[in-house]
C-alpha cells in the first residue's frame, strides 16, 4: 500500500467515524440525517477505494461490495440502535452477511456453522435475556452513549493501525504454502471443504478439540452456578416430605 492510498483510507475512516459519532444515541439532538449521510459517503468511498486499489484480478466485486456494505451498515446499527431487541436483529444481518463473505472465500462449512451457531443458538439466548431483563420503553442508559467522541477517536486509531498495517504486511504467500497448494490442488478437487476441515480437526488439532469440549463443559457448569437463584433454606426443609413419604397421601387414580 503506497503512502497516498493509506492517506485516502484514513480519510474514508475519518468520514465513517464522524458518521458514527452523529449516529450514536444522544439525549438532546437526534442528528441522525447527518450521520447517515456521512456513513453512506464513507461506505461508498471505502468500496471505491477497495475496488480501485485492493481487489486484484480475482475480484469478487459486486458480491463483495454488497455483502461487505451490508455487514458494516448492520454493525453500525447494532451499536447505535436505542432498542436492544433491534440491535440483536441487526446482529443477525451482520452474521448472514459475514457468512456470505465466507462463502466468497471458499469457506462453506464455516459459513453454515456461523449461521447455525450465531443465528440459531447465541441470538436466541440473547433474545431470551432481553425478554427477561429489558424494562419496557427505552431507559436513559440506552438513549445516551458514554463518551462517544473519545471512544470513536481511540477506535479510529486502532482500526487505522490494523487496516493500514495488515494488508501491507501480508505480502506474497510463502513458497512452501504455494507448493502445498499445488500439491493439494488434486485431492482437494475431490473432497469438500467440510471433509477437509474435519480431517484437520480430527488429526492435527485433536487435542484442541478435546480442550474445546472441556471448555464447553466448564462454561456450562459456570453458567449454571452464576445464574442459579438462591432458595431460602427453610423453603427447602419445610414443605418437602421425607423420602419414603412422597405420594403417601396422594389419591391413586
Amino acid at each position, binding site marked *: 500500500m503506497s503512502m497516498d492510498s493509506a492517506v485516502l*483510507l484514513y480519510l474514508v475512516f475519518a468520514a465513517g467515524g464522524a458518521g458514527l459519532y452523529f449516529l450514536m444515541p444522544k439525549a438532546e439532538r437526534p442528528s441522525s440525517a447527518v450521520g447517515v449521510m456521512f456513513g453512506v459517503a464513507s461506505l461508498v468511498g471505502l468500496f471505491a477505494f477497495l475496488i480501485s486499489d*485492493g481487489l486484484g484480478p480475482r475480484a469478487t466485486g459486486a458480491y463483495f461490495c454488497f455483502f461487505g456494505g451490508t455487514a458494516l451498515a448492520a454493525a453500525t446499527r447494532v451499536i447505535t440502535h436505542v432498542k436492544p431487541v433491534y440491535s440483536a436483529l441487526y446482529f443477525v444481518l451482520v452474521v448472514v452477511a459475514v457468512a456470505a463473505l465466507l462463502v466468497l*472465500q471458499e*469457506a462453506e462449512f464455516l459459513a453454515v456453522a456461523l449461521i447455525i451457531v450465531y443465528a440459531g443458538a*447465541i441470538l436466541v439466548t440473547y433474545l431470551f435475556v432481553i425478554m427477561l431483563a429489558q424494562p419496557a420503553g427505552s431507559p436513559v442508559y440506552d438513549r445516551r452513549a458514554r463518551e462517544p467522541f473519545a471512544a470513536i477517536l481511540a477506535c479510529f486509531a486502532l482500526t487505522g493501525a490494523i487496516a493500514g498495517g495488515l494488508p501491507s504486511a*501480508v505480502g506474497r504467500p510463502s513458497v512452501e504454502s504455494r507448493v502445498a497448494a499445488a500439491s493439494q490442488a488434486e485431492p482437494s478437487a475431490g473432497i469438500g471443504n467440510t471433509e477437509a476441515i474435519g480431517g484437520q480437526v480430527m488429526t492435527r488439532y485433536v487435542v484442541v478439540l478435546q480442550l474445546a469440549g472441556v471448555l464447553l463443559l466448564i462454561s456450562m457448569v459456570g453458567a449454571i452456578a452464576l445464574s442459579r437463584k438462591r432458595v431460602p433454606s427453610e423453603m427447602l426443609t419445610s414443605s418437602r416430605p421425607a423420602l419414603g413419604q412422597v405420594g403417601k397421601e396422594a389419591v391413586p387414580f
Partner: protein
Amino acid sequence: MIDGTAGYLILGAILFGLGLTGFVTRRNLIVIFLSTEIMFQGVVLTAVAFARHHHNLQGQTYALFLLVIAAVEAGLALGMVMLLYRRRGTLDAEAWAVMRG
C-alpha cells in the same frame, strides 16, 4: 493486495473497530456483549482471509474453535448479565461503577 485479501482484512478490521466502539460507548450490558460478538465476526473474517491467502485450512480451523469460544463467552456473559440484573434491577453498566476501585 493479492487475490483481494486486503479487502477482507480491511473489512475485518473495521468490523472489529465497530464492535470495540460499541463495547466502550454503550451502557446497556446486553448491547455491550452484542458488540463483542461483532468483534468476533471481524476476527473470523480475518482468519479465513489469511487461510485463503496462504492456501491452507489452518485459519478456517482456527475460526471454528473461535466459534466454540464465542459460544462459551455468550453463555457465561448472559448468565452474568442475569445475575447482575437480579442484584441491581437495572442493565446499566454504570450501576457497577463502584467496582472501578
